[in-house]
């Protein structure tokens, strides 16, 4: 297995493109650059050019899945080397990588990030007889530590068949040697914001899907482990839990994107009550197809004051991070140019600044380290937590990498499955 490490997401993408021939149009520059990139790809694309036949895991793993349901994805992968595909073989692959067979007919877009990654593993294994190797970007970033063995199983299968495995990681990114990584410290403690989360047995129901094929309805009920109706927390709060347990769904409930079918969730924070604001795992999508500055201008089109505040917050966060990397040119380069914002990091800072400017009670960062090197991710979260602390905004981090945020978080909650439909939230 060859491992390549990069300081910036953009360098990782460039490497991936050069290695696989798959172009990923840039999304942070706005529509002009996007269409130019797509046009360039279309003009230079040569379907007959012989690339090394390999299976890919993209930085955003959902992009490597071209079909809408796991059943289709795996059936297509298996059909590359076999004319008859047995459904039991598909179920077997899902189970091999720790995914329940019920997931076979669930739409890919409704799977969690970790489940999508595991589905990519299953697809890679299904394609093993047909390909010469595997090119994977950040292959375990969205996995819980107890799932790292799934990646090891996949690599072992490729090794056994003498296929190459090429991995592109970001510096300091978790990998199978994560457990041996040093303890992290922060020089100055991050200010704490005390707030209360109320849970009145919220239930989220996912309706059955009837076409093109059937997928049964399902539900998740969130409860506190001690049976109480509220929990006192000190921000920054870290939320952990296994893949597919419902962390991102919980974040969407907190931010009002998903309305519980029964029960309720209540936030009581220094900035008031109401819904949290959320930065998604794949934050680039939240630019809504606009450039970083274009999005900020669009959101604050009717509110000059907040736009000014958001721009000030952006400058403060940007300066806070840059100051700490004064002597580290690689990190400074990875942060991108100050004159033209275009990196994933700058997109995240901008989206965070926009949300802090609205004085939200709680800001949820879902897997904030995705697409960032460890040092930059830590500095981003630390700087955001300090700025948010000054504004009395509580921060919630949803992450599989508790070690990344050591010395930074004041409370930690763990989500665990109890029975088929209940998720228990416990303070660790």
């Amino acid at each position, binding site marked *: 297995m060859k491992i390549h490490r990069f300081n910036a997401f953009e360098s990782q993408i460039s490497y991936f493109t050069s290695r696989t021939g798959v172009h990923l149009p840039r999304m942070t520059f706005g529509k002009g650059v*996007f269409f130019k990139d797509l046009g360039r790809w279309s003009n230079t694309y040569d*379907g007959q050019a012989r690339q090394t036949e390999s299976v890919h895991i993209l930085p955003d793993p959902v992009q490597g899945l071209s079909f809408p349901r796991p059943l289709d994805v795996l059936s297509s992968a298996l059909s590359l080397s076999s004319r008859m595909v047995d459904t039991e073989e598909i179920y077997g692959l899902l189970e091999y990588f720790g995914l329940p067979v019920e997931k076979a007919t669930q739409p890919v877009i409704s799977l969690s990030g970790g489940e999508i990654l595991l589905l990519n593993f299953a697809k890679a294994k299904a394609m093993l007889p047909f390909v010469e190797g595997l090119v994977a970007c950040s292959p375990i970033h969205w996995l819980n530590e107890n799932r790292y063995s799934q990646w090891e199983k996949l690599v072992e299968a490729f090794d056994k068949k003498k296929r190459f495995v090429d991995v592109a990681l970001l510096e300091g990114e978790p990998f199978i040697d994560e457990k041996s990584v040093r303890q992290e410290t922060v020089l100055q403690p991050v200010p704490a914001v005390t707030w209360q989360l109320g849970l009145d047995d919220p239930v989220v129901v996912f309706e059955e899907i009837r076409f093109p094929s059937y997928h049964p309805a399902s539900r998740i009920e969130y409860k506190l482990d001690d049976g109480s109706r509220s929990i006192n927390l000190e921000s920054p709060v870290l939320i952990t839990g296994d893949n597919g347990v419902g962390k991102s769904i919980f974040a969407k409930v907190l931010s009002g994107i998903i309305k519980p079918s029964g029960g309720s969730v209540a936030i009581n924070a220094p900035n008031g009550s109401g819904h949290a604001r959320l930065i998604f795992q794949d934050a680039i*999508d939240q630019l809504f197809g606009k450039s970083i500055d274009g999005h900020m201008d669009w959101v604050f089109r009717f509110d000059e004051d907040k736009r000014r505040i958001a721009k000030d917050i952006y400058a403060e966060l940007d300066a806070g991070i840059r100051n700490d990397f004064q002597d580290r040119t690689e990190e400074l380069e990875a942060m991108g140019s100050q004159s033209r914002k275009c990196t994933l990091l700058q997109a995240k800072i901008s989206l965070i600044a926009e949300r802090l400017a609205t004085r939200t009670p709680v800001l949820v960062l879902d897997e904030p380290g995705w697409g960032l090197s460890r040092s930059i991710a830590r500095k981003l979260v630390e700087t955001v937590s300090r700025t948010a602390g000054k504004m009395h905004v509580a921060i919630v981090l949803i992450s599989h990498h508790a070690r990344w945020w050591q010395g930074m978080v004041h409370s930690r909650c763990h989500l665990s499955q109890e029975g088929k439909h209940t998720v228990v939230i416990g303070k660790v």
Partner: protein
Amino acid sequence: METHTENKRTFPWWLKFVLLLVLGLPGFSGWPNGWLIQRLQETGLFTVEIAHIGVWVFYACCVWLVVLVSAGPHKLLAYLGAAFILGLTVAILGAVMRGLFPFLAAGMGRDATSFKLIRIFFNIIIFLPYSILFINSFSAKKLIDRVARLDGRYRTAGLHLALAFRVFQHTGEVVFNLFQIWTEEYPEKIIPRNSGSPGVRWYAPGKILVWIWACIHAWIFACIIHTFEPIPAMVAEVERINRANPEA
């Protein structure tokens, strides 16, 4: 296994195709709606406009019933929500534009213009849910597999069409994701979250038009960009399937 047996309960693709074509027949050919309108007029009880509206409302109910049975009540409501918003936006903007620029409706009477806008509105609220049902009723994967096993000149064209079909399907997934992002940004959906700057009234007549136009513009481009984003990866996937099934 429950999911396995349920999968086998679905119609064969050709039967679905025929049923959906029959359902869409009035849209493609105007028959039998035109014939029914004529019969209603001949009774002398209805004007041509009332007959038109009555028949098309009845047809809309038939389409919605099929969507309800196939996709369930939640999907039907979601499709209808999108269709009514789009239909009303087009009809209202159409009326405003025709008022501002009368040459757009040159040669048409006032009633004929209004009636035309009503027809456009009906077409949107009927054929948007129908189109979504149609596109999502078939498996792009199976279509690509079938085409990849063809020989001859139709193979390449077929693969392009199958890919285009999958891209259309992907639009639905993109809208679902964008809707979540939009809801996070604008919880009230049609009202800007940040509208409280002193002295600024976003709902002032000029500004509200700017806001609506900017929303339509943002949605159109976001849908296009996010739909097109995975095309290179999808093309690579289809090419791989193509290579795995060499022509005889």
